[in-house]
């Protein structure tokens, strides 16, 4: 009965599925985005911080403070300020820093290259190593290989990124001098030095991803192997390779991919600490510095960008999920 489905029909069907997923994800993410930006913007009013204190110092006269606040438009009603700011956010304008008047979008853009290099590399390590470990554990389930992998995964899952980072610096950078201990070189100045500088922070960040992907993939695959269709395929005489790629992998992949989507926010969050350890002038470092300096617009900008990153990444994961495991379309 599958013979009457033409290639064109299948393509149209797949496209429709992608569009449906996209529409559903957007419907979920729009309220999330509105709410998250509102909370972010409310931070200024809640914090009671003002650019006047940064620019004029502690003992400024009330008139001078009022003048500076009027200059920044802070004497307008809260909702008017929010609407104005949100309009800017939609156009990619995150305002200017209280500390030095620089354009925040530009400042964040400078740091984002560093952070995204590290985060992408960490995700890559997490996916490759996590998939390898999870698959091997599932194929050799209940043997000593499986137990060894499970033990290893448990061990690395309890190591926070900053602890791993410090140990890596102490052993590989300071002790054995295999890697530079701090700093960043853009990829344009040579791929070798670029990789050398981002490897340690990426490895430190990847532990968590490796552990979660491996665990979810193992349990997903083991569950898929117990299904009747696998027994059926076995009875039909299909090769183990074909059963694994055709039946087991596609059905067991869902939880691991979904985990990847959930891991991204913690990767972005952990960059605050790892960039501090490895002396990277990235997104997380910028967030920490601005927060400690009380530069509210810069912090708001960082949070908005992080929310956008998370939302876009989850959209991407949902699309892949819809493509790879059709079953994920039903229960949602």
């Amino acid at each position, binding site marked *: 009965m599958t013979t009457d489905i033409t290639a064109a029909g299948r393509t149209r069907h797949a496209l429709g599925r992608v569009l449906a997923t996209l529409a559903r994800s957007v419907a979920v993410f729009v309220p999330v985005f509105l709410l998250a930006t509102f909370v972010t913007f409310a931070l200024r009013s809640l914090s009671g911080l003002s650019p006047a204190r940064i620019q004029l110092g502690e003992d400024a006269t009330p008139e001078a403070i009022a003048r500076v606040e009027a200059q920044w438009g802070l004497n307008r009603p809260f909702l008017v300020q929010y609407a104005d700011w949100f309009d800017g956010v939609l156009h990619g304008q995150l305002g200017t820093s209280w500390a030095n008047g620089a354009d925040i979008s530009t400042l964040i853009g400078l740091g984002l290259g560093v952070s995204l290099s590290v985060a992408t590399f960490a995700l890559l390590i997490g996916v490759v190593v996590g998939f390898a470990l999870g698959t091997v554990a599932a194929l050799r389930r209940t043997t000593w290989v499986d137990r060894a992998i499970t033990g290893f995964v448990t061990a690395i899952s309890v190591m*926070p990124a900053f602890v791993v980072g410090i140990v890596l610096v102490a052993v590989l950078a300071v002790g054995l001098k295999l890697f530079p201990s701090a700093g960043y070189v853009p990829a344009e100045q040579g791929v070798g030095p670029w990789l050398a500088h981002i490897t340690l922070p990426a490895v430190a960040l990847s532990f968590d991803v490796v552990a979660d992907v491996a665990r979810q993939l193992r349990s997903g695959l083991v569950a898929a192997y117990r299904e009747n269709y696998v027994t059926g395929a076995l009875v039909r005489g299909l090769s183990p390779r074909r059963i694994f790629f055709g039946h087991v992998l596609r059905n067991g992949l869902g939880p691991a991919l979904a985990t990847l989507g959930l891991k991204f*926010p913690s990767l972005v969050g952990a960059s605050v600490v790892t960039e501090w350890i490895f002396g990277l002038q990235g997104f997380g470092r910028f967030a920490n510095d601005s927060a400690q300096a009380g530069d509210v617009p810069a912090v708001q900008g*960082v949070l908005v960008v992080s929310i956008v990153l998370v939302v876009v990444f989850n959209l991407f994961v949902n699309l892949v999920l819809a493509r790879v495991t059709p079953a994920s379309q039903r229960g949602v």
Partner: protein
Amino acid sequence: MVRRVLALPSGRIAVAVLAVIALLAVFGPWLAPQDPLATSGNTLGAASGSHWLGTDYLGRDVLSRLLDGSRVSVLGSLEVALTALVVGVIPGILSVYLGRAFEWITLRLTDTLVALPFLLFAVAVVALLGNGITQAMLVTGVLVSPLFYRVSRAATLAVARSPYVEAALISGASLGWVVRRHVWVKVLPPIAVALAQTVGVGFVIVSSLTFLGIGVQPPAPTWGGLLASDLGYLSQRPWAPLTPALLIVVTVWACNLLADAIRDVSGEAGRALLNSRKARANQIDEAGPAPAGGAS
């Protein structure tokens, strides 16, 4: 449930480790052999009879600082877990009963909280709203509460649809009585699992924040702060981060071990309902086998 957890070897180990850490938190400041804030000329000293773990860059005794700093980390992580428990569980259970509007709003709220990179947000909120580990941990607790919301909601959903609860409601039992009598028993184990996990997560967050110097005043010792000050002197004392790092890792590991032990003894229901992802996967399974071989 406590007795059954202690019957497992892993449960005993986890409880023992956590008990030691808790004792450190309670008695640590008195056990400290020297004043954790007293500086001396013996800077970056190696381990010796008078300084078992050596001295830091200001000549302060590292062992005393570790013992004195344990209280901040432990109290902070407990505060995260308890805040998350209160903020997550109550709407999680009520979302099943209070109608669709409440359900929709709380679901969107948890979606939002999950989308926020919580460490980044914790750093921002704490730095902007004023220093103090207490505020920091309250905010963090709210940010990690979605886990409790989902776990309690999934468990409650499963119980709420069960025949005996419907029978109780039809026979005129009040909602409060049903929740106390039937729902609570089934919902408690997965919440206990989530609580143990969250204490571990809270521990990592407290350590990360104190590592960045957020939420505590500089001379006060914390485990994260010890790591941060060791970082600058790695070439002189490369082994220095080992003790605080090990303490943090072992504590987090014990929390996870305890969570696993509770999950193992609380039976099939607790295991299957641990997280919504698994619950959803089960629903898909129950929806019937996937149409195989061109049945459509």
